[in-house]
């Protein structure tokens, strides 16, 4: 590694704060990167110390995705903005059927942000990246004036390779296809909300934030040909994702409330706040539209994976030129599952 006489970088992690010099490109910024980022993301690419990293591309088509993470609060039960950023982008790449290979990470940090929190986030990001086997091979740091960022914003990009012949897409759902979800819905949104001020409820729900690429790899290996498309129901929840897919594919959908997996505490928290779990965000779940003959096998395969234990078939793709998503309620009647304008707010009525 370093064979020159290097000045040992010093940062007061315990009580220090980020200031504008940390983003100015000089020694202070170098110190920041050395102490906080380098070890956490440690890999051969970053060790080279360049502004970019070169890598070989194998056979197949390349996939690339990018995302910005601006979540508040930064730390929540089951995760933080760092691990969320890794999981989110790994998933976006993997949902195309691709094997995620590398990530980039850009940080925009607010002046005055505690170094201890920054270290916590970066360490968490590093751990998530290692656990997923997808290294962060290039990055950037900027510091902005106080008030210009909510603590820290993270932008990531991810690249991967999708095997030849696998072309999943949101416009490929066909009448008769089955709709599968990989597990319980609403966990992330409820976990985050429980940390928001003025809602103050205690619940043992953790965010489901997770990297789904190994689950997806199993699904592709088992029944790649039967997969039409996969998407993760993040903002807007299941409702938004199903409506998006219905429009893209110009079909309708019918799901069954009784088959949608939900944790009892999530149901209870949503009842308390007047929210519909179908509109609540998830960060470690996927929806798959699949050919009907493979549906049951796929569910069995998914249930064998730790992130798919509660996988279930929840409905069917039907013909509908109005692209409505309908649901048979557990009580017996029928209703629409519409997407919401804007974020759901807790209500009293």
């Amino acid at each position: 590694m370093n064979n020159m006489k290097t000045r040992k970088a010093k940062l007061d992690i315990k009580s220090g704060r980020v200031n504008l010099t940390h983003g100015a490109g000089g020694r202070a910024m170098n110190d920041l990167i050395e102490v906080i980022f380098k070890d956490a993301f440690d890999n051969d690419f970053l060790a080279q110390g360049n502004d970019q990293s070169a890598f070989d591309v194998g056979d197949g088509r390349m996939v690339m995705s990018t995302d910005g993470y601006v979540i508040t609060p930064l730390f929540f039960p089951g995760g933080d903005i760092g691990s969320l950023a890794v999981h989110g982008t790994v998933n976006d790449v993997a949902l195309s059927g691709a094997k995620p290979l590398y990530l980039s990470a850009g940080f925009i940090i607010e002046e005055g942000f505690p170094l201890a929190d920054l270290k916590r986030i970066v360490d968490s990001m590093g751990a998530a990246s290692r656990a997923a086997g997808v290294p962060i091979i290039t990055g950037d740091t900027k510091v902005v004036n106080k008030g210009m960022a909510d603590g820290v914003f993270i932008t990531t990009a991810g690249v991967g390779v999708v095997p030849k012949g696998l072309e999943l897409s949101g416009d490929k759902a066909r009448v008769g296809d089955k709709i599968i979800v990989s597990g319980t819905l609403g966990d992330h949104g409820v976990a985050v909300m429980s940390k928001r001020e003025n809602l103050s409820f205690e619940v043992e729900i953790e965010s489901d934030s997770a990297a789904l690429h190994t689950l997806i790899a199993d699904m592709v290996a088992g029944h790649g040909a039967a997969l039409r498309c996969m998407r993760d129901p993040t903002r807007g929840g299941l409702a938004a994702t199903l409506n998006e897919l219905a429009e893209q594919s110009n079909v309708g959908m019918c799901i069954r409330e009784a088959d949608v997996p939900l944790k009892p505490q999530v149901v209870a928290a949503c009842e308390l706040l007047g929210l519909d779990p179908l509109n609540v965000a998830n960060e470690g779940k996927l929806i798959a539209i699949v050919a009907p003959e493979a549906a049951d096998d796929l569910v069995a395969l998914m249930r064998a994976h730790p992130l798919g234990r509660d996988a279930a078939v929840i409905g069917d793709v039907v013909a509908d030129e109005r692209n409505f998503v309908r649901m048979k309620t557990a009580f017996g009647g029928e209703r629409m599952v519409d997407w919401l304008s804007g974020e759901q707010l807790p209500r009293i009525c």
Partner: protein
Amino acid sequence: MCLAIPARIKERLGDDMAKVDLDGVLKDISIALTPDVVEGDYVIVHVGYALSVIDPQEAQKTLALFDEMQAAGALAAVTP
């Protein structure tokens, strides 16, 4: 109107407050409007306040009413 949900009184706290449990979701609410509740009672919670106590016998009667066969049976059992 009124989004309100039945929750179990887990613990009386001081100051007219109590901790309620709704299937694992815990919340501190005011019991100023139902001051005589005890642990184990179920209350209807609306905007952070318990509005009324659920009467378990009436709840049973209502459920029986829904299932009139059952209700008829229960009536037969009660009538001498």
